[in-house]
């Protein structure tokens, strides 16, 4: 028993030693990219980041959170660069002097999903605004992300009276990501707003169908923001700039434009450079 314990102890110390020696390796030059769950979930960043890391030797730590949290991380200097889709909040972020540059990168689009029998007849509307008005008027079940993400912000902007709807019984907030929210909406046979990439990933598993698409307000522009290093000296402005430049390079543009053909049967993001 004593011998066993000693072996155990030695193994433990060995592990500790290994952990401590590996530690400096974790601290190699790296930048933190705070972005939205939709870009992570779609797999786009898995395609974009390896070539950048190979080219520059800078590791990118991708943190997938809601746009609200991503902007907050930028405001606190906890991220070096942001890739977000919440234009109004981004403008406020820039106006407060939290960022040094903001570039348009790409857009994808949102689709209004609902049960195929469309009880609120949202599909037969003149505009997306009217479709939301009809859903509110009919008192049909609507499932919202409710997580301060870009998708959530977009959805709130489409209601005729957002304050009234969120206190309504037929409005459900999941507080979760797009995938989980889609599945809940499907189980409840409710309406929901989803980004196209997530919808396409789940298309074969859900019964909900697209009721509206292509309306201008449904376009979802992504911007890349470099965080202001003057506010927070720890922000790695140099690495952030190199990443932003990389994303604007022809090679990255090609990757973005072609992304999704294999998995989703068509491109998910459309280039949007300034």
């Amino acid at each position, binding site marked *: 028993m004593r011998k*066993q314990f000693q072996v155990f102890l030695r193994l433990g110390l060995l592990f500790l030693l290994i952990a401590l020696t590996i530690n400096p390796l974790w601290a190699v030059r790296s930048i933190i990219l705070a972005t939205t769950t939709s870009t992570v979930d779609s797999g786009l960043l*898995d395609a974009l980041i390896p070539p950048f890391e190979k080219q520059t030797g800078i590791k990118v730590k991708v*943190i997938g959170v809601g746009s609200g949290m991503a902007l907050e991380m930028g405001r606190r200097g906890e991220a070096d660069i942001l890739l977000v889709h919440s234009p109004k909040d981004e403008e406020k972020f820039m106006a407060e002097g939290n960022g040094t540059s903001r570039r348009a990168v790409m857009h994808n689009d949102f689709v209004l999903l609902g049960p195929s029998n469309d009880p609120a007849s949202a599909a037969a509307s003149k505009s997306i605004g009217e479709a939301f008005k009809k859903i509110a008027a009919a008192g049909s079940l609507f499932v919202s992300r409710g997580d301060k993400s870009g998708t959530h912000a977009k959805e709130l902007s489409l209601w005729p009276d957002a304050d009234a709807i969120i206190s309504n019984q037929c409005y459900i907030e999941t507080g979760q990501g797009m995938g989980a929210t889609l599945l809940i909406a499907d189980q409840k046979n409710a309406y929901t707003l989803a980004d196209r990439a997530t919808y396409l*990933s789940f298309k074969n598993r859900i019964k909900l169908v697209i009721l509206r698409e292509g309306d201008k307000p449904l376009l979802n522009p992504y911007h890349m923001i470099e965080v202001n290093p003057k506010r927070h000296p720890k922000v790695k402005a140099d690495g952030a700039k190199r990443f932003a430049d990389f994303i604007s390079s022809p090679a990255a543009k090609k990757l973005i434009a072609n992304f999704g053909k294999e998995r989703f049967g068509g491109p998910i993001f459309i280039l949007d450079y300034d």
Partner: protein
Amino acid sequence: MISQDVIAIIITTLQVSGTALLISILVGVSLGVFVALHEFPARKLVIGVINTGMGLPPVVVGLLVLLFLWRGGPLGFFNLIYTPAAMIIAQVILATPIIAGLTLAAIQSVPQKYKWQAEALGAQGWQKAWLLIRETRLSLFAAVMAGFGGIISEVGAVMMVGGNIKGQTRVMTTAIVLESQRGEIELAVLLGLLLLALSFSVNLGLTLIQQRARQV
């Protein structure tokens, strides 16, 4: 079916939770034995804190560790946020009270007679502690298994402080969350089954040592 990525995730899981478990055992068992065998002021308060710690909500631990380790946080200069080290810290905070609390209960349940006997035979300090650890080894193995169960299955804290970064801090639980959000249900289920298998084999290994200890 089991790709390079999945293997990397399993290795990270083992490294993070294995290191966290070993640190928690060293700290938790020492703390439990110390508190069980010593009288000091506020001892009951300390025991109360340990027992509360056994049920710490992982997301709260995650949030606190995040705030401490962020660049702007009090410990930000270590540059540990979004690294496996940050995940190990969160898991140690979760597992240590579980192991300490169960150790404490085990040592306290040893009959007073045995403790006197040990002392009468001349066992003091470290020797006495060691005798008691040996005496309660079955319970201590159970404590280790409980601690392991608490951290291998945990997702909220490691997601927050690790960031679920591919190839760096992605572990099995966070990968399962991601893949189920992505709609890759088959992969999520596969990872779930692998996690169960991993947990089972570790516990089986510990159980075998534990049951062998019973016969010694």
